[in-house]
């Protein structure tokens, strides 16, 4: 399970980074979204991956660490708000500059 989980997180991060480095705002927004998904998955696994664990501490039995779940919840909320904001911002930039390049002007072609 750990291997699959790590590969998933890694692929998401790589795709997110690649898209964030693109020149147009739409791929950048999608890239940031993927990046935040990857981060949430990563945070989720930080207490260690357990299956069939109790959700609360109950003696010596195996349990799932509740703290990362609370952290992920916070991170999801913040990430969601930020994505909404950046979408609106990208649309404003598109209408102000007349194109969707992140620098506000097209690259000069030879």
């Amino acid at each position, binding site marked *: 399970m750990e291997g699959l989980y790590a590969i998933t997180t890694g692929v998401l991060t790589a795709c997110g980074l690649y898209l964030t480095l693109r020149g147009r705002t739409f791929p950048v927004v999608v890239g940031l979204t993927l*990046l935040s998904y990857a981060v949430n998955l990563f*945070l989720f696994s930080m*207490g260690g991956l357990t299956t069939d664990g109790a959700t609360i501490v109950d003696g010596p039995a195996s349990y799932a660490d509740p703290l*990362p779940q609370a952290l992920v919840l916070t991170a999801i909320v913040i990430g969601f*708000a*930020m994505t909404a904001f950046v979408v609106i911002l990208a649309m404003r*930039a598109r209408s102000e500059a007349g194109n969707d390049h*992140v620098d*506000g002007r097209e690259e000069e072609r030879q």
Partner: protein
Amino acid sequence: MIQHLIVLPVVLPLVAGILTLRSRQGGTRSKRLIGVGATALLVMIGIALLVQAAGGEVSYYALGGWQPPFGIVLVLDRLSALMVLVTAVLALGAVVFACGGDDEKGSNFHGLFQLQLMGINGAFLTGDLFNLFVFFEVLLLASYALLMHGGGKARIQAGVHYVVLNLAGSSLFLIAVGVLYGATGTLNMADMAVRISELPAERAGLVTAGALMLLVVFGLKAAILPLYFWLPRAYAAAPAPVAALFAIMTKVGIYAILRVYSLLFGEQAGPLAGLEQSWIWWLSLATLVAAAMGILAARDLRLMVAYLVLFSVGTLLAGIGIGSVEATSALLYYLIHTTLVTGGLFLLAELIGVQRGKAGTRLVKGRPLKQGGWLAGLFFLGAIAVAGMPPLSGAIGKAFLLIAAEGTQRLWLWPILLGGGLCMMIALSRAGSTLFWRSHGEAAGEVLPRRQWFGVVWLLGASPLLVVLAGPISDYTHATAVQLANPQSMIHALLDGESP
């Protein structure tokens, strides 16, 4: 009341912000009253906190009554009290300036301003690593909106870069926090410091990776060399009162570096102690060089002030890079000076730009200023302070720092810092003579409102005051540096209620 004092710098701006968000348009007078009133109250709270912390004891506020290390805590020591007070003083100047008309150029200025203050104060007071992330997000979200207050193409474009970079930075912050939590099993900074000092060797690599990722995040906020390219454009485009408040934003990054690395990776951390030092030292020198070139190359007064902010960041980081108690004390004195003076210069640049009409703050021949004498006088005062010339506070701060450097560090720091000072003098005198002397035509600008004058004088006037009070202030910063160098006092104060 007195035991709730620590939480007030977070709660007061939150309540004031919500009150001003009641109506989107209109109600200017009541919004201004709430904004200025809350900020003035914040100054008083800051003074009360400083008095409480000056004795040297570390006190904490357990939110919801959950005791550390399990609950979230706000921690008050000398450093956080000082930062809260500096923020409040800066914010008061900026908000009074904004009441001169800038707040009506867009909606919800005062509400966003208060919420940003809440984020900044929270970041200074929190004792929990994840909570630091949350407060960073609060102050960033408010700053995104404030940066674009009033709209316009330049602001939106600078905003796109600023927002995207900071969102990527937030992701990295979360990864770093996750790594540190995975390796140590706690998020409370004092508890984490204990766990790191008892760290099994096989986890040292993980903690190092997490710590250096945190350094990248804080470096992005503080604008260290490879991560500063967003700063000049964003600061130059922001409305003047917002740019003035942003003068403290880079210092939030500096504060985070100081707090996290002195607490987690102090002497008790064993092999991991001081792992950030050499990185920060060399990058700070490179930042100083880049900033000096930017100051010389700037063709716009606001852009020049943005590079002056960058130069101050380099200076402060050099202090962290040296790492001794004297250097930390020097950088804290310099931090007070540079935050207030660069904030004042942003406000002053706006006034100059308004009176020059179409030429604005660009360094070209323009029409003469209507109140040129007063503005030139203030510019002269600000330029001397920021360039670090005697008799104003910049010189004292720089001298402290130069003395604190030892051995080969002197060989590097002295020429770069003093050469940078020369660059600043050349650039500022060239800018001043262009703005005030190379003019033609008739002066036509309007007389500036008194509130805007107050904002500028309040912030620039801090510089002579810092000289007059240099003795007590440097005593305080020295005590702060000693407290930072001994993280045990904070660990004891937070965790002693626990059975070991």
